[in-house]
C-alpha cells in the first residue's frame, strides 16, 4: 500500500527487525511506516472478527497499528519512532499472559 520513493542514504539508515528478520528503516519515521514500507501487511487481525487489518490514520486515532515493540504488546506503532536494534513483532493473537510474564 505504501512504498519508498527513494533509497535511504546511509546516514539516515536505522536497522530494526520485523518478525525476527532484519529490515532497513529511515531515521525519524514511525515503526508503522517502517513496517508498511517493508511490505508487511496485513499488520494484524481484528481480535473480534479475525479480519485482516493495517494502519489507517497514521496519527494515533485509529489504533489499527498495534504491534509488539521490544517485547511490549499492543503498542501504537505510529507513535513510536524507529530506533537502532528495535525488535518489532506483528501480532495476530491476543497477548498471552505467559508472553507478558517473560518481560
Amino acid at each position, binding site marked *: *500500500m*505504501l512504498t519508498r520513493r527513494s533509497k535511504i542514504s546511509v546516514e539516515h539508515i536505522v536497522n530494526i527487525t520485523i518478525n525476527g528478520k532484519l529490515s532497513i528503516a529511515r531515521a525519524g519515521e514511525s515503526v508503522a*511506516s*517502517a513496517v508498511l514500507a517493508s511490505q508487511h501487511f496485513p499488520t494484524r487481525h*481484528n481480535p473480534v472478527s479475525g479480519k485482516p487489518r*493495517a494502519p489507517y490514520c497514521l496519527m494515533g486515532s485509529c489504533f*489499527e497499528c498495534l504491534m509488539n515493540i521490544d517485547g511490549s504488546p*499492543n503498542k501504537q506503532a*505510529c507513535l513510536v519512532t524507529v530506533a537502532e536494534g528495535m525488535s518489532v513483532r506483528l501480532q495476530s493473537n491476543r497477548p498471552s499472559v505467559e508472553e507478558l510474564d517473560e518481560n
Partner: protein
Amino acid sequence: MKTEATEVVIIGAGPAGLAAAKAASNNEVVVLDEQAMPGGQIWRSLKQVEQRRDLSHFGNDYRRGLNPINYFLSSNVDYRPDARVIGVEETESKNGGIILYLHNGSVKRIAAKRLIIAVGAQERSMPFPGWTLPGVITAGAAQIALKTADLVPKRPFILAGQGPLFLLILSQLKAVGIEPDVLLRLDHQNSIWKAIPHLPGAFAGAADLAKGIAWRLNSTFGTKTSVKNVISIEAHGKNHLERVTWKTLRGKAGECSASTLLIHDGVVPNTQLLRSMRIPMWYDKSDASWRPKLVSIAGQLAENPWVFVAGDASGIGGWKAASAMGSLAGAAVSHSLKGDLSVNSEELRKLGKARASRPFLNALYPPAKAFTHPKDSTIVCRCEEVSAGEIRDAVKMGAQGPNQLKAFLRSGMGPCQGRICADMTAAIIAQSKGKKVGEVEPMRVRMPISPVTLGEMASSDD
C-alpha cells in the same frame, strides 16, 4: 502519587501550541507533546524534510512552520515530547487543575493554574463498505507517510474525497511525480450555489481563496481519470485492497483495480480530551462538527475559565487561524496570571482574516454523501466490528443514546474509545430516532483517554 506544579500547561505543539507558548513565555510554561518533535500535523517532520531538501514538495504553508519551530526550540520553554496526556482532573475548579500524562514509562501529574488545549484536528468519520481493508488509508495518513518517511502510495492508487486538504495532498503527490490512477470527486454537485452567497465575506481571505482555486484547477489537469459527483464507493479484496468500485450521481458505475485507496472528507476537532473532561460541546451545523463552548475568541471555555482551547481543536480554521488563536490564548492566559497585556489587535486581525473563507469552504464542502448514511452492512465501529445496521436495530430495541448503546453493543468500547466512530454512531442514532444530528451527543469518554499499562499506572515516584 507526587504532583508537580507549574503556571501554564500547553497540550500540543502545532501552530496553535507553538504560538501560545511564545505568547505566554513570561510565565512558567510546560508544553506536553505526544510527538517526538514540534510541528503538530501540518508541520510534521519539518526539520527532517528540510534536511532531506524536500521542502519544495509540500507547498509554502509547510515552509512557514520553520520560523515558529526554530523559535520554539531555541526558547527556554519546558518542552516535553513523547508525553501523552491521558486526562485532566479537577476541571470544575476556577483556579486550575491537574493534568495527567504518560511520560518515560509512568503516569505523571502536573498541577497548572491555566491550561491551553491545542490538540488539533482529526479526519472526519468515513465509513463505507470495505473501508477496513489493509490498503485503505486517509489522505492525512498519506501526507504523514510522505513527510515523515518519504513514502508514497503503491500503484494502482485511487484518491477519493473533497475539500482543501484533498486538493493539497493531490498537489503534494504531483510535486513528487505521483498522480492517482483515478481521482474520485465526492463534492456535492450543486454545493457551489450554496457557497456563492458566502463568497463576498471570503474575500478578506483572498490569498487563501486564490491558493485553493489554484489547487482545484491544478487537480483537473494531468490525472488519468477524474470522476465527478461520486456518491458511493466500495473497497473490495480478500486480505487487502484489490479493487474499488463507485457510482456517480447519474448512476454511472465504475471500477478500478487498486493497491491503495486514499480517502478524505474534511477534518473535525479532536474532542477526545475535552469529552473526558465533560466540557460542554455544541454541534456546528455549518461545518458538521462538534466543538467546545467558548466564551471568547481567545478560546476560553464557558464553564471552566482556567482552560482555553486554541486552534483546530476549538473549531476547524486552518493553520493561520490556529496560530493567531494560540497567540490570543497565550496572551489571555498571561494577562489573567500577571495582568500585563492589552489585547493584541494584530492577532485579532489575523484571526479574522484567516477565518474569513471558512463559511464559503464549509458551504462548498458539506460532508460527502458517500459516507453520511452508511448501509446496514457497513462497519461503523472498526475496533469491535459493529455495523450501522446493528446500531439501528439496537435503537429499535430501546437503546436511547450512545452511552446506553454499550449495554446492547460494544461500539465505542474498543481501543480507539470512539475516536473513529463516536460521531458517526451518534449521527446514526439521531437519524434512526428522527432527530437532528446535533441533538444526540457522542458517547462519554473517560480517563485514561489513551491506553497505559498497569505498570505505568501503578508506578509511584515516591
